[in-house]
């Protein structure tokens, strides 16, 4: 099944001449992703990692890109997302951190109106081993297999994916939802995809403090998911009212504690790992 992207997905990078855009477009190509172009206003005609640079997304539209990775500064993310939606792209992945959540909200609802999926902001993207990678996950940690991962964290995902691979298992799809309070995609949307995907046999959810996304995911699993699901929750030690790095990782008015999330998962039959490294053991 095509889970958001596959080996034929044509990808562009908005902000390709920036530090991140330059480095990660090269890494994506090495992974096998079809990166067909990039944008950077005023820099049309240049090449980055052999990829042609254009001024505007409209100038690449004839090559029929399907997905974009947005790596521009936070104040310009909204415009970049709308530019991609206007050009008919179907996946808008936002790498940028510190996007105001009012912008994220507006982008998300306008995207939905146009049938466009948003991933991020402030997440590592999506990787499907052997097929396609859009984003910044390290190329070397993956192996094709039957475990799907959805996560609100970046580095922690790499740690867990690496542990899964080292134990001789592999991954079907790994999705980074991002660390913001208003993510384009949430656990339930990821679970719907993993549940329907025949290549996915087991599912890992990596949550953290803040909001009630994990609690709702637990409810969804109880009702709809027959595949094995295991989880890890970061932030057991976090004090209330403090943002732990991610804009979304904060316990506010008693909502969003690790205890509540762990309890919800356990009640839904989802085993929760004490340490990230315990995930492969729970999957076996």
């Amino acid at each position: 099944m095509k889970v958001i992207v596959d080996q034929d997905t044509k990808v562009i990078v908005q902000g390709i001449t920036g530090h991140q855009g330059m480095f990660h477009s090269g890494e994506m190509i090495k992974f096998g992703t079809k990166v067909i172009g990039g944008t950077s206003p005023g820099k049309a005609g240049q090449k980055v990692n052999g990829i042609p640079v254009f001024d505007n997304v409209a100038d690449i539209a004839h090559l029929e890109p399907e997905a974009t990775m947005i790596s521009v500064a936070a104040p310009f993310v909204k415009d970049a997302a709308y530019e991609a939606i206007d050009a008919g792209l179907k996946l808008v992945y936002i790498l940028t951190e510190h996007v105001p959540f009012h912008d994220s909200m507006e982008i998300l609802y306008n995207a939905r109106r146009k049938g466009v999926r948003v991933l991020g902001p402030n997440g590592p993207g999506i990787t499907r081993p052997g097929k396609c990678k859009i984003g910044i996950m390290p190329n070397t940690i993956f192996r094709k297999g039957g475990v799907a991962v959805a996560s609100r964290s970046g580095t922690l995902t790499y740690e867990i994916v690496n542990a899964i691979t080292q134990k001789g298992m592999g991954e079907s799809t790994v999705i980074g939802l991002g660390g913001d309070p208003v993510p384009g995609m949430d656990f339930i949307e990821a679970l719907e995809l993993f549940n329907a995907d025949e290549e996915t046999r087991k599912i890992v959810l990596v949550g953290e403090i803040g909001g009630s996304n994990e609690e709702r995911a637990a409810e969804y699993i109880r009702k709809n998911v027959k595949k094995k699901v295991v989880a890890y929750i970061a932030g057991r030690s976090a004090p209330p009212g403090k943002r732990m790095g991610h804009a979304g990782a904060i316990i506010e008015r008693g909502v969003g504690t690790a205890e509540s999330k762990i309890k919800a998962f356990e009640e839904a039959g989802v085993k929760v790992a004490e340490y990230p490294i315990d995930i492969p053991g729970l999957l076996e």
Partner: protein
Amino acid sequence: MNLYEYAGKEIFRKFQIPVPEGYVIASASELRPYTSPVVVKSQVLIGGRGKSGGIKFAKDQKSLESAVKELLGSKVRGFTVNKLLVEQMLEIKKEYYLSITLNRTERKANLIASPSGGVEIESVPESQIFRKSIDPIIGYSDFIGRQLAKFMNFDAELSKQIRAILPRLYEVFQKYDCELVEINPLVLNGDGRLVAADSKVIIDSDSLFRHKEFPKEDPERTPLELEAQEKGYSFVELDGNIGVIANGAGLTMATLDALLLHKGRPRNFLDLGGTDSTDIVVEAFDLVLKANPKVILVNIFGGVTKCDTVASGIVEAKKKYDIKRNIVVRLSGVREIEGREILKQNGIEAFSEMMPAVEKVVKFAGGA
């Protein structure tokens, strides 16, 4: 970022949301002569000011002067009072609750109201709370106000007043990138007007690039947290004795959790972020050393941030700051072997797995 009550009310006034007449003072010399009964309110970013003695009433010049003298410079629940809001006293006939906030689950703004105002909304039974999602594309429209007025049992006059306030409140929420705009209580005054007796406005810190009118100072953060923020680090001070440097918010949180499960007590949260430079590592050590922990744990999963870069940074920091306390390092991922070799040559122990590193550092710290 939380705004002080007076700053929130200034915004309300600008958007014609009724607030009591008043003025702010930072010293007794700014006090205007007494004319009518007033409330003197400490400007601190914490709830429950009234109960903690941070709000005083004055019915003559003498009591006004003594209230100002007593409150300025005092501490309300640990927060120093640097400013006072001197406000015309309201004749409270009824107190309501009104707010607009982000509902993270719905990924939409919610309008919340209750006929039981003046107390924390969390303590109000759900049956007395009106909640309405605001569609981000449609925005606020008068039908929402009519629903709210009906729930609150408002007569035609109050309905008219609240429906004038609501679109302006939503405008404030949108225009200032708010996480929360709250009026608690919204008072029905003796003269029949609805008046915002308090204000709580929280602005999304990520939006401050387009709200340059607000100062960068954030009284909720410690000086060290502010310094770290200036330098681009996510940093939170905690009360333990193990300094922590990790990369990625999730992994940093997981590191603190693992320490705690091993009866270790972290001194801080520090996320290096996704950069690959020794300078970033050296500067991170500078910050952590300022927090004066007994030992330091570095936990890195290399990707964009490469393990050998971090290792070189650690060696450089150890020399630069002449660090004598124990440093325990875990390096895994991109260029981990090179990284561990660099550390070994400089006499620093490095693990490839997280748990042995955690156990070791807790031992050094004198825990478990």
